[in-house]
């Protein structure tokens, strides 16, 4: 090949790099030599097996991510290498399969949320929240954003970071200690100046409780010309009214419950939806798949649409910088949703609801344990308050091979006796009873 190129050494191809920049020796990387596949797997497996698994019983820890069951068929289909070794489908004719799946993703999530527009994924829920806020700022051209004090503290941090480059007032709304709900007077007060770009609410909230009348918030926000952004948990929508029904403008969520593993927190799947509205659509971040026809009009097919919003065309005027997204996670969610169907989704949501309430009930029978701490309805996660420091309970549970709830000594609750438990379809009655017994022994 070198001869055809017309050089005598491959280094000739690097002659334009200043001499002093060229490394004298190959970098010190890996194990000082190349490894055979067997050696690598032995090394990696031996490292990984030092991690501690909590599968029996399954983990009770939450905080935005919980362990769910990933059906084998989902894993199998996502492993089709035509999907996962493809790039973004820039050539639609040769990637119709991939495009159709992504269009199905958008459509299924849209029907789950009862929203009309869903993009082909964001990185995760935290960045989806940030993008939603940025979008609201662009749409309304206002400079204040209201968020609940009880929101996921990491999401709040992310939002703050993403707003660093902008001159924005990010304001927390007060909440009711009894129910966890946003304080309506505070909301009204802060909306009054008509300078709010968006009100962000979570249903269910980070702490698991559910605001049952978001209509009020939606109306107030809209009355004052701001957008309503809703953060959701997708499985809960098997039993909870979809945000499209209470007039959300933008909906975001974490898609991880839809067939993704935990993977120590990534990759995840940012759900992002809006109303079908010119103004919103023009400001939508991320990729969008749509239906079109062949040039001879004989058949329908799928392409990426509205690319003129995107960075590779619009550059600094783009609606976002995102290009690589979480397509494979979107494929996963598509397959997962099509396996469940509406009824399966409802049954699954119900089963999670039942199991988490069963744990709350059982815990509430223990002396001086407040479970749930908030009086409002909840889904999957809920706050429990113990008579003693939770840190101690958590450590003792670990000794019994149980991964307990997430301590809430930090934001938003700053309550060192409280934790956030997560119960999913994985927890059999026996698993739950085991946790309750263990806690009984510890207290």
């Amino acid at each position, binding site marked *: 090949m070198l001869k055809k190129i017309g050089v005598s050494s*491959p280094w000739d191809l690097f002659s*334009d*790099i*200043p001499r002093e*920049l060229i490394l004298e*020796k190959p*970098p010190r990387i890996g*194990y000082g030599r*190349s*490894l055979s596949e067997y050696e*690598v*797997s032995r090394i990696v497996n031996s490292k990984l097996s030092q991690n*501690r698994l909590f599968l029996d019983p399954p983990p009770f*820890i939450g905080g935005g*991510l919980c362990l769910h069951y990933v059906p084998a068929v989902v894993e199998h289909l996502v492993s*089709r290498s035509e*999907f996962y*070794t*493809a790039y*973004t489908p820039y*050539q639609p004719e*040769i990637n119709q*399969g*991939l495009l159709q799946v992504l269009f199905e993703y*958008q459509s299924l999530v849209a029907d789950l949320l009862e929203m*009309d527009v869903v993009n*082909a*994924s964001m990185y995760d829920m*935290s*960045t989806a929240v940030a993008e939603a806020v940025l979008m609201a700022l662009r749409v309304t051209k206002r400079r204040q954003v209201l968020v609940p004090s009880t929101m996921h503290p990491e999401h709040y941090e992310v939002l703050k*970071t*993403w707003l*660093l*480059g902008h001159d924005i007032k990010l304001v927390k709304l007060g909440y009711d200690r009894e129910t966890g709900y946003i304080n309506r007077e505070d909301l009204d007060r802060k909306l009054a100046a008509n300078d709010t770009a968006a009100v962000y609410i979570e249903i269910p909230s980070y702490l698991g409780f*559910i605001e049952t009348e978001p209509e009020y918030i939606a109306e107030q926000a809209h009355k004052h010309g701001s957008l309503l952004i809703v953060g959701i948990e997708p499985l809960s929508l098997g*039993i909870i*009214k979809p945000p499209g029904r209470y007039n959300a403008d933008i909906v975001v969520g974490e898609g991880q419950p839809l067939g993704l*593993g935990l993977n*120590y927190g990534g990759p995840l799947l940012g759900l992002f939806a809006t109303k079908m509205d010119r103004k919103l659509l023009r400001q939508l971040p991320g990729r969008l798949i749509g239906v*079109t026809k*062949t*040039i*001879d009009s004989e058949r329908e097919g799928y392409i990426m*649409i*509205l690319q003129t919003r995107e960075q590779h065309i619009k*550059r*600094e005027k*783009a609606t976002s910088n995102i*290009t*690589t*997204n*979480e*397509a494979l996670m979107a494929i996963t969610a598509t397959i997962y949703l099509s*396996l469940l*169907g*509406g*009824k399966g*989704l409802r*049954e699954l949501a119900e089963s999670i609801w039942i199991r988490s309430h069963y744990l709350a009930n059982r815990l509430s029978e223990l002396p001086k344990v407040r479970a749930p701490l908030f009086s409002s309805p909840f889904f999957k996660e809920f706050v429990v308050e113990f008579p003693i420091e939770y840190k101690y309970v958590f450590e003792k549970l670990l000794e019994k091979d149980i991964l307990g709830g997430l301590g809430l000594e930090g934001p938003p609750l700053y309550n060192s006796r409280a934790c956030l438990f997560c119960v999913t*379809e994985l927890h059999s009655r026996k698993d739950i009873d085991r946790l309750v017994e263990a806690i009984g022994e510890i207290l």
Partner: protein
Amino acid sequence: MKTTWKQARWNEPLVYILGSKETTGYTIPYYEELAELKKKLGYTPREELGAIYRDELPEIPGLSEVELVRHYTRLSQMSYGVDIGPVPLGSCTMKYNPKISEELVKTPYIQTLHPYQPEESVQGLLEILYELEQWLLELTGMDKCSFQTPAGASGELAGALMIRKYFRDRGEERDEMLIPDSAHGTNPASAAMAGFTVVKIPTSERGTIDINALKSALSSKTAGIMLTNPNTLGIFEDEILEVEKLVHETGALLYYDGANLNGIMGIARPGDMGFDIVHLNIHKTFSAPHGGGGPGAGVVCARGELVDYLPRPLLVKKDNKYVWDYSCSKCIGRIRAYYGNIVPLVKAYIYLASLGGELVREAAIQSVINTNYFIALIRNIKGYELPYDPDKPRKHELVISAKPLARDTGITAEDVAKTLLDYGLHAPTMYFPLIVEEALMIEFTDTETKKEIEFYAKVLEEISKRAYSGDKSLKKTPTNTSIERLDVVYGNHPRNVAPTYRVYKRLRGEK
């Protein structure tokens, strides 16, 4: 050169046509327990939730497992990735991803780990990440990396925010970011998201940044410059040390878009070139597959003072234990929730551990050989030209222009791309970078074989011949793919925009 290739063509309807919301292929765990637990509770979701209970089933069509498998298996056959053939999309580094990585990450020892479980319980995984970081530092010449950023663009945003915070902390008002006109679109987009005003720097006829233009752009308002090197033309910025001096002298910073390090990894380091911040695309250079669009993983690294600004938490070793360091006196905070896209990062670890330093360098060399070999093969094909100093070696990629072809025959870069599909090949990136007309941007990476490269060149030659012989069918390609050429204008027409099935139905007057 007759091709009888046909891509699978299933007339696969949408899942909505196949399924029904009453059907499910999912089995609820411990289903038989539910009735009793429900009784024990004494109330139902509907009762508890009241007004916010969902009355109707979601309109999600369910399938039995066998229907599901057939539907998505068939759709997969109508998709095209590196496992099917070359995907020489320039700027994308579509190298082959060894299967060992896929196998090793499919383990409960990764899949079931919760980000909030105690650090002591994930030491094995953290050790992998820590070692990976050391290797990336070695490759970039930086001091510290953050794994937070889930993709390259996100790394850029982090970097831009770091620069903004850096100057804010110093009380300097610098809000201009210099970006070459050849840069990837994410650069200006990220800079803008961080609140910068983008100043475009033109490309000289040598294919590198125009130093004079740079000089006149630099001022006390300049916060920094974002550079890709080798740039998107595949050309190494040979005046980089000069650029560095100029920029740093004005007090501004240098940001390195290392999305694609494939042409120089193990050969030259952005740190040695004087860059302050670098992001890397794990899903390009470091062999995590691209997933049909994602997930990726970005890593953002910094030198010197800038380390303080990296997104948190950072992974550190303390008393022989790996822990997350959340301390943040100057940092920009978090760029996303949790720690990063762990799975692709582990794949990068496996990739680098397998190769070791020598083969990493070899990979870079091979990718550059492949690029220049391809140039040699197509150099004299009528209709294509290599803009910007055609005698300069390219690195990981190259950009040709089909302008002569378009001018002579009316066959555009798009037609060339679409016709390539008909030979069972994936097309290059088209119409980017924007500074080249009728651009075709081609990157074979180190893993394509000589045979594939030669075949690709031959097909390009064949297309040129067909075009010059007046073959009008090139405007109607492809026909061997699962569908014929699609009408991009139609689908984008405001009347037709259908991003979801519910909108699609509405447009067609269905319920």
